[in-house]
């Protein structure tokens, strides 16, 4: 906690109150549930004796935990029915795996079903996570996409309240989930961000982010800093009773009016980004002054436009190539230089592409950053709004070729997780409104970039090509973080499928709706284009006749085999949801 003034930790309390308090941070996941629920009402579902362990850890020599590090507890808070999903920070740093992720998304799904049938069941998610569990890579990444979707399915019917107490905080894709919540509560000891400081330093060097600079970390990611720019609603001291009171109040307030959730506020994100000059990035203090704590559009003038752009030939990328190839006679139009679109009567195509002059220097190679998230969300929302009354909604095709999300200090300062949540929300809104949303992976699809642009699709197609790589993190970084060599990682991937970088292995995980053979993925032939266009048309047709939620990713023949653990979670939670209270 170096560098955080002692007064900050009091968060409005006196020292006497601080000393008398019951710490929430010191509680484990189960004790946190008990501290929030009305006394005597708590019932743990799929608990330790159900032994729903991760099937992927033991083969890697990692001791599993009997509940995979997530406690699901039902009960009431202030008399209102609630389900709590509490992440145990001690186990694997709270990272999301197949089972722990399925427990959260299935619990939210059951709450949504009950809420729709007339009894609102609020959800409380206790985030304490470093993000996707890299030992379960692709299954963890998909689990986060399913959690995001499940939050959005429940949110119109009952409030979804996120609590980030610390000390792990919330990082990675799960912070997108946190940013989708109806209300977000944090302590001054919490940190919230998309990319953690160490990962940014690893990707772009110490000049981009010095991960030993604690003052900087807390000024960017700290609960107080997040509250000061309006992406956290309540800043509460580490006190179990005060936190319970805040959660109780959030449940009483209930759902937010449609369109007013933070992740639906494309207007606020747009006005904030317009006020920031990426060439002269603001300090944390300056940012606070620019955007303020109220999450409303700014009345300030946009920052001066950057220097005029050179008219270079744009760099080749598979995203650009395929977007053009699939739309002969309709050249892709830039929304911004790094986001291209083609719109026709039946379909909207979108791709994120490299832009060597991107004012955000960490987003020059086709990464999904702040302005890319905004441009994607605006384009999707435009089509959803325009087709609101249409009988047949246009299809949306996300052409995916991206190295990752942008790893940068400015991105974190402004809140990349919140920007990505705006995009995820837009894609989810399109899918649930009846737009067939198709992801077509033509190159790399990594990490948070894919969560934002692709993983909310009804149907996912991928080219069967060695250059197609779908994963939670690129090889070198994944090896470093899991303390392995790249060779060890590759040999483990032979027995632990979700670790594999091969697209044919990825296709066996349960969420591949088509693996498309092509002769040349870099310069598609006429036959390639014809085959991929036909596959897209088929996928669009399938999407029109299948559920608009993500249940197909659990019901596909491949999922029945590979995702047995997720399906066991779904079945057990459903069976125990309404069971009589057991001692």
């Amino acid at each position: 906690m170096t560098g955080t003034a002692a007064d900050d930790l009091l968060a409005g309390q006196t020292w006497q109150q601080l000393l008398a308090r019951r710490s929430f941070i010191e509680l484990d996941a189960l004790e946190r549930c008990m501290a929030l629920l009305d006394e005597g009402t708590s019932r743990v579902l799929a608990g330790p004796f159900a032994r729903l362990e991760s099937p992927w850890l033991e083969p890697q020599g990692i001791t599993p935990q009997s509940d995979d590090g997530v406690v699901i507890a039902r009960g009431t808070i202030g008399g209102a029915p609630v389900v709590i999903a509490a992440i145990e920070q001690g186990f694997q740093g709270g990272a999301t795996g197949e089972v722990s992720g399925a427990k959260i998304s299935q619990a939210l799904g059951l709450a949504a079903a009950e809420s729709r049938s007339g009894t609102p069941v609020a959800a409380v998610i206790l985030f304490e996570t470093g993000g996707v569990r890299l030992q379960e890579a692709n299954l963890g990444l998909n689990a986060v996409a399913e959690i995001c979707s499940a939050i959005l399915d429940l949110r119109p019917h009952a409030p979804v309240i996120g609590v980030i107490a610390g000390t792990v905080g919330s990082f990675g894709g799960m912070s997108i989930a946190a940013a989708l919540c109806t209300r977000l509560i944090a302590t001054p000891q919490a940190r919230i961000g998309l990319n953690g400081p160490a990962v940014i330093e690893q990707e772009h060097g110490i000049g981009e982010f010095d991960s030993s600079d604690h003052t900087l970390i807390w000024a960017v990611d700290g609960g107080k800093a997040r509250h000061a720019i309006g992406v956290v609603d309540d800043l509460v001291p580490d006190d179990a009773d005060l936190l319970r009171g805040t959660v109780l109040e959030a449940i009483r307030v209930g759902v937010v009016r449609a369109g007013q959730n933070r992740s639906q506020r494309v207007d606020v994100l747009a006005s904030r980004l317009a006020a920031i000059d990426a060439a002269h990035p603001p300090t944390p203090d300056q940012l606070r002054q620019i955007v303020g704590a109220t999450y409303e559009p700014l009345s300030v003038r946009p920052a001066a436009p950057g220097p005029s752009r050179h008219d270079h030939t744009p760099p080749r990328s598979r995203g650009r190539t395929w977007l053009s190839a699939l739309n002969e006679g309709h050249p892709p139009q830039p929304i911004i230089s790094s986001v291209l679109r083609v719109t026709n009567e039946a379909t909207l195509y979108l791709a994120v592409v490299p832009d060597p002059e991107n004012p955000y220097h960490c987003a020059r190679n086709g990464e999904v950053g702040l302005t890319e998230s905004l441009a994607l969300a605006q384009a999707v929302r435009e089509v959803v709004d325009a087709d609101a009354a249409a009988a047949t909604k246009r299809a949306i095709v996300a052409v995916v070729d991206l190295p990752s999300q942008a790893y940068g200090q400015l991105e974190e300062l402004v809140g990349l997780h919140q920007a990505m949540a705006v995009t995820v929300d837009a894609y989810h809104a399109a899918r649930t409104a009846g737009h067939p949303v198709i992801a077509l992976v033509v190159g790399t699809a990594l990490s948070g970039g894919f969560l934002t642009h692709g993983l909310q699709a009804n149907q996912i197609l991928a080219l069967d090509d060695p250059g197609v790589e779908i994963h939670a993190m690129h090889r070198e970084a994944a090896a470093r973080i899991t303390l392995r060599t790249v060779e060890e990682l590759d040999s483990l991937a032979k027995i632990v499928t979700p670790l594999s970088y091969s697209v044919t292995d990825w296709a066996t995980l349960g969420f591949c709706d088509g693996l498309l053979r092509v002769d040349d993925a870099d310069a598609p032939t006429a036959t390639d284009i014809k085959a991929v266009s036909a596959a897209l048309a088929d996928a669009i047709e399938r999407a029109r006749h299948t559920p608009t939620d993500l249940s197909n990713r659990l019901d596909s023949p491949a999922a029945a085999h590979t995702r047995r653990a997720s399906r066991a979670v779904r079945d057990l939670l459903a069976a125990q949801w309404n069971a009589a209270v057991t001692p």
Partner: protein
Amino acid sequence: MQTLTYDFPAGQAAPNAVHVGVVASGDLEILLEPPPSGATDSSASVRVRTSVDGFDTVWHDVLERFFTHTSLAGRWELNDFGATPGVVTLRLRQAAEAALGGQP
């Protein structure tokens, strides 16, 4: 990672199933279940899954000492993430107390 199994003679059957601890760094979780009803021989059957290899003898000695004092029959599962013998003994005692209805 290593999986070790042990059997110790035990007199009293654990009356309740209990779960204590977390598979966190330097810690472990313990699941204790009563022996199946109608079981004739009463013993503590212990399965240890530990992230640290090569401590078979230490595990044996720590467990033997505990079950000499606390003769609680049932199925014991220990999922360990590098706990020291002292921490293991404390968690075992906590599990026994909780199973016997005392305050953990």
